[in-house]
């Protein structure tokens, strides 16, 4: 279930941040004094970009605050939900914080910084968010009489190209405690940043979510990764829509997918890449969602399933290699004696591919 359904924007403000100066000094951000007037068209484009970045099936990652200092972004950001004046004031504070975070490298580009607030879901939970958009350049064609002239447009922001923006969403999910009547607020943080990796050392990858927002990947990812593997494996094995001979192939695909270098796994991406049948894709996604696996990107951590993913390989002279899954290798490969220059190997099963 998406947590940004029924997105209603009520405030937006835009500031500008700049890359580190050539003299090594920070170039101060430009802080706007007034809110953007929201018309239907603006709301539509901005909502569209937000949902594309943090909605269901998006590649955002849910995170948790690791910066617990009193002036952290979560604490400061809550002020954005109150009055218009608080919204403006604290958007300035946070823009300066982002600008400082960018000073760690000369290669971090400047861009537009949008702060927005509103409500989401049927329960109209309040949220605030920050979006940094790097600028794009392009060409505008102008018809002049009987010829076309080209104009350089180098300040285009927020095109659908998702590489060009990063978002942090802070949703205030509130529940009323049944017994005490107290309202409990549970803040959930969703970050979208295509430069992000789980290696939290590289500056361009971490300045936005770690240095600026103070968030990090949740420790529950080990469990989620293992759950994803187990549920997917069970789904494939029990599915009546998959031929029995294809099942081991899909399990192998699942393992390859998790062994990959991507720092995250994503339910729908996996399904679309490996299942051809779209009805099967939907069933798989529903099964995952029913078991609580998020429909957005999840930081991958294969610690609990290392042995399942492990490969075992037998290498020979003459560069021949036999590679297989570690847990079933022993059962399926029988190695004989080395006699007369040859090692006899017996492999259970028949040849599937000869490429």
């Amino acid at each position, binding site marked *: 279930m998406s947590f940004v359904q029924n997105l209603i924007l009520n405030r937006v403000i835009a500031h500008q941040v700049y890359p580190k100066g050539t003299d090594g000094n920070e170039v101060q951000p430009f802080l706007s004094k007034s809110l953007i007037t929201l018309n239907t068209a603006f709301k539509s484009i901005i*909502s569209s970009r937000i949902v*594309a970045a943090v*909605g*269901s*099936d*998006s590649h955002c990652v849910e995170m948790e605050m690791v910066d617990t200092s009193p002036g952290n972004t979560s604490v400061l950001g809550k002020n954005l939900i109150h009055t218009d004046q608080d919204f403006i004031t604290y958007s300035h504070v946070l823009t300066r914080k982002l600008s400082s975070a960018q000073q760690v490298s000369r290669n971090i580009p400047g861009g537009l910084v949008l702060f927005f607030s509103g409500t989401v879901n049927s329960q109209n939970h309040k949220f605030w968010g920050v979006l940094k958009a790097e600028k794009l350049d392009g060409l505008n064609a102008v018809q002049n009489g009987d010829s076309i002239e080209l104009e350089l447009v180098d300040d285009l922001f927020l095109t659908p190209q998702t590489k060009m923006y990063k978002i942090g969403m802070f949703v205030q999910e509130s529940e009323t405690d049944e017994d005490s009547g107290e309202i409990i607020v549970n803040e959930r943080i969703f970050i979208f940043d295509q430069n992000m990796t789980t290696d939290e050392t590289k500056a361009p990858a971490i300045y936005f979510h770690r240095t600026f927002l103070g968030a990090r990947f949740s420790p529950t990812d080990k469990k989620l990764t293992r759950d994803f593997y187990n549920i997917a494996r069970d789904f494939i094995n029990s599915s009546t829509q998959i031929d029995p001979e294809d099942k081991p192939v899909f399990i192998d695909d699942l393992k390859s997918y998790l062994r990959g270098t991507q720092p995250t796994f994503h339910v729908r991406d996996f399904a679309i890449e490996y299942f051809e049948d779209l*009805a099967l894709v*939907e069933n798989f996604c529903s099964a995952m969602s029913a078991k609580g696996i998020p429909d957005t990107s999840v930081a991958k951590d294969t610690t609990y399933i290392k042995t399942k993913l492990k490969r075992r390989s037998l290498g020979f002279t003459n560069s021949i290699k036999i590679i297989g899954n570690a847990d079933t290798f022993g059962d399926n490969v029988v190695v004989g004696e080395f006699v007369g220059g040859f090692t006899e190997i017996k492999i259970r099963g028949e040849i599937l591919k000869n490429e």
Partner: protein
Amino acid sequence: MTEGEFRSKFDAEAEQYLAWGKYVHTQISKIISTHCGSQKVAPKDFTKISFDPRVKEINSLIAKAFYRQKPYKNPYVEITDKVGVRFVFLTESDVRSIGDLVKQSSDWIVRQDRDFEIERELQPERFEYQSNHFILFSKSNFEFEGVQINAETPCEVQLRTLLMHAYSELTHDTIYKPNLRATQKVKRLVARCSAMTEVAGEIFERVSDFFQEERLSKLQYLNFSRDYLKQKGFDPIEGNHFDYLLDSISDLIAGVKIDDISKFLEEKPFLIDRLQEKSQIDLLFSHPVAIIIYYLVQIKRTQIRRDWPFQNELLEKIFVDLGIAFEQ
């Protein structure tokens, strides 16, 4: 009765016959309308040809009355098709349905003179003219459109299918009147034709049922959607403007349970407001089909992306409302 007496009597009563014929035509048209209402089909699509009441030409009547091989005892009374109406429908079951309703009506006394199903059973090896004929007699003296009609005035009603009508048009003045001689070859050809129309008729029936099922099943979703919208104070537009859309997604919609759509709407009460806003800008959102599309996006989004026949921007708006990323 002499020819002259027949003529005068008919002259005097011709107006009555016509009036009775008009009354019968009007009443049967109402029967058809009501039947169409319950079947959710338009009368102009259901009745393929409707023939206005026609009074037989006096010379034809005289010829029929007095120049017959087997003479009538009382020709004036025995000839019951002095005025006739005819309705042509698509399938035999349509003919049967209307025929049953005509027989049940209390507006007249009915005598069925021809029944193609009974005739097939009684003489299975014969292939010739088929139609259902009813003689409708007025129950009492009454006035219709300013004309006094006597009790027991007859009107012949013919109900048949398009195929039966085609056969009849080919042969009605010729072969089936037994006193005319046709060559054996032509008789055989005509019999084959009648047999073929019976086979085609069965196929028409099956195809018609299939389309009816399809239409009703799509209708149930649209009706549910329309009822829901009206209940929430939203006035949807009518019309089949989005039939093309429904056809494009018909395999996605197959098997969808109305209960599931209902649950989905309950979980997302904000959809009505979103529809209201959007209907000011895009026509799609004022039509009941919009709700079905929202549901399909929720449960079959990859497939509907693939099958969507209109601009992507339109579909994207629905994704955004549901908080789902619309990626390439």
